[in-house]
């Protein structure tokens, strides 16, 4: 079943009298339980698409159907309630949390806002969330800036799954992590998807990571779709110029030294 259907999404910015289309007529769809990757060089519009889909930025044209409803038509309280089903994990986990927050407060917010657990149940729910992402409950009272980057991204994932979403937008969610932690976080994401059938919109410039996690990939260039299809097929044999350039530029672990 189609979970998210985006068609003809367009966003223009005016800069110094000129109008630049950051996203220009982009269409794609995500099935439930599927991972779709948006890949492309810097400035290709992938993060803008993430923000448009989440209604953090309003598009100039196009439609976004989520769970069968017109997501762009929702307003106020109805939009806030529907946001429970559509979550996001940001690139820099330190910037994504209020600098004054503790782990417990970060996880308490979605549970309280969407009335998922009553006040008395929340400490237990927070502990359960931390365990679902491979952390221990004793992390709860710690301040966000005190824990490691990998732990922080796990907390961000815990916050995203707190409301049992059907889709999570991962905007360069593993790009800021070091290689060993990156592997663990990808493992966690695959594990969560297998257990709870969450769909991912996975935004990345790293084709190696995309090949490892995504079912399908959409390659973007200057706000337009350059190429799309099965992730392995596209990355192993890119047809578009930008696809070839991205694959050629990607570092390979298994490449033989000359």
């Amino acid at each position: 079943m189609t979970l998210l259907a985006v068609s003809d999404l367009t966003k223009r910015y005016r800069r110094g009298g000129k109008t630049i289309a950051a996203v220009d007529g982009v269409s794609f769809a995500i099935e439930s339980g599927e991972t779709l990757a948006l890949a492309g060089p810097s400035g290709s519009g992938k993060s803008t698409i993430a923000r448009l889909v989440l209604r953090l930025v309003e598009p100039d044209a196009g439609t976004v159907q989520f769970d069968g409803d017109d997501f762009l038509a929702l307003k106020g309280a109805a939009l806030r309630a529907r946001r429970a089903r559509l979550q996001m994990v940001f690139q820099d986990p330190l910037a994504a949390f209020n600098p004054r927050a503790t782990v417990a407060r970060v996880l308490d917010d979605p549970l309280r806002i969407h009335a998922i657990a009553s006040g008395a149940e929340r400490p237990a729910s927070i502990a359960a969330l931390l365990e679902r992402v491979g952390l221990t409950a004793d992390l709860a009272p710690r301040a966000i800036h005190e824990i490691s980057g990998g732990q922080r991204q796990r907390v961000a994932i815990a916050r995203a799954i707190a409301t049992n979403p059907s889709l999570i937008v991962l905007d360069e969610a593993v790009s800021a992590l070091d290689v060993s932690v990156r592997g663990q976080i990808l493992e966690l994401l695959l594990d969560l998807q297998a257990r709870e059938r969450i769909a991912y919109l996975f935004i990345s410039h790293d084709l190696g990571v995309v090949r490892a996690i995504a079912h399908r990939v959409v390659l973007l260039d200057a706000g337009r779709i350059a190429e799309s299809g099965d992730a392995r097929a596209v990355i192993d044999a890119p047809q578009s110029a930008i696809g070839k350039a991205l694959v050629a530029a990607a570092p390979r672990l298994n490449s033989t030294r000359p």
Partner: protein
Amino acid sequence: MSPLRRFLRRPEAAAGAIILGVLFAMALFASLLFPGDPQAIAGPALLPPFQDWSLPLGTDRLGRDVLAELFHGARTSLAVGLGAAAAALFIGAVVGTLAGFAGDLVDEVLMRITDAFQTVPSFLLALAFVSVVGPSLGVVVAAIALGAWTGPARVARAEVLSIRERDYVAGARVIGMHPLAIAFREVLPNALPPVLALSSVIVAAAILTEAALSFLGLGDPNRVTWGGMIAEGRTVLRTAPFLSIIPGIALVLTVLGIYLAGEGVVETTAVRRSLS
């Protein structure tokens, strides 16, 4: 080194802290050291200072104890200064946060109101307000806050404009937090430090404004105020100048102490930020 010790190592900060400490002690122990009404007659009229050691700073035109008046006046000055600054910072932070966070029409309306308040000299505003509503401590505090909240509002708005673009605000929207909750729980606490840095200037200005209002006879008539004491002494300025000079010195020292301590706090936190 602890922040407190780093603060006290600055000579100007230490001086400010001592002056403020003395001021707070005066306000705190005023009714303990000088029980009863400070406006009651305590001895012969116009007794010069350092003559009678039961009345060390002498007496005024009506025979009231100047030292007792000075101590009780410290209470009024501190109450008005802190009360007006707290009210001004509160109003300013709320208005600035709403304007900066809501943007568009709300921003325009709130900032034009702020402009309107800023163009009227704050002392005239306080003067007009007190003359209309009538002098009492609460009214004086409100009148001074009315002219002082625009600065904090502008600073808070500027800070909120930068904070609202951060990822954690987007994150709060993604989890479905209400915009007002985002503004006041996520944004405002992080916008406060530069707003609070204004507090020493506002407290000092509020104390001076209160003194000026009292000097013009628009202070709370049931309380001793330094401005009122200066006004009272003015009629006998040639024969007993000490009656105006003593509360004048108290006023100067207080304002100086608040500035120095405030400057010390700002400098100390700036050092800490550059170190970390």
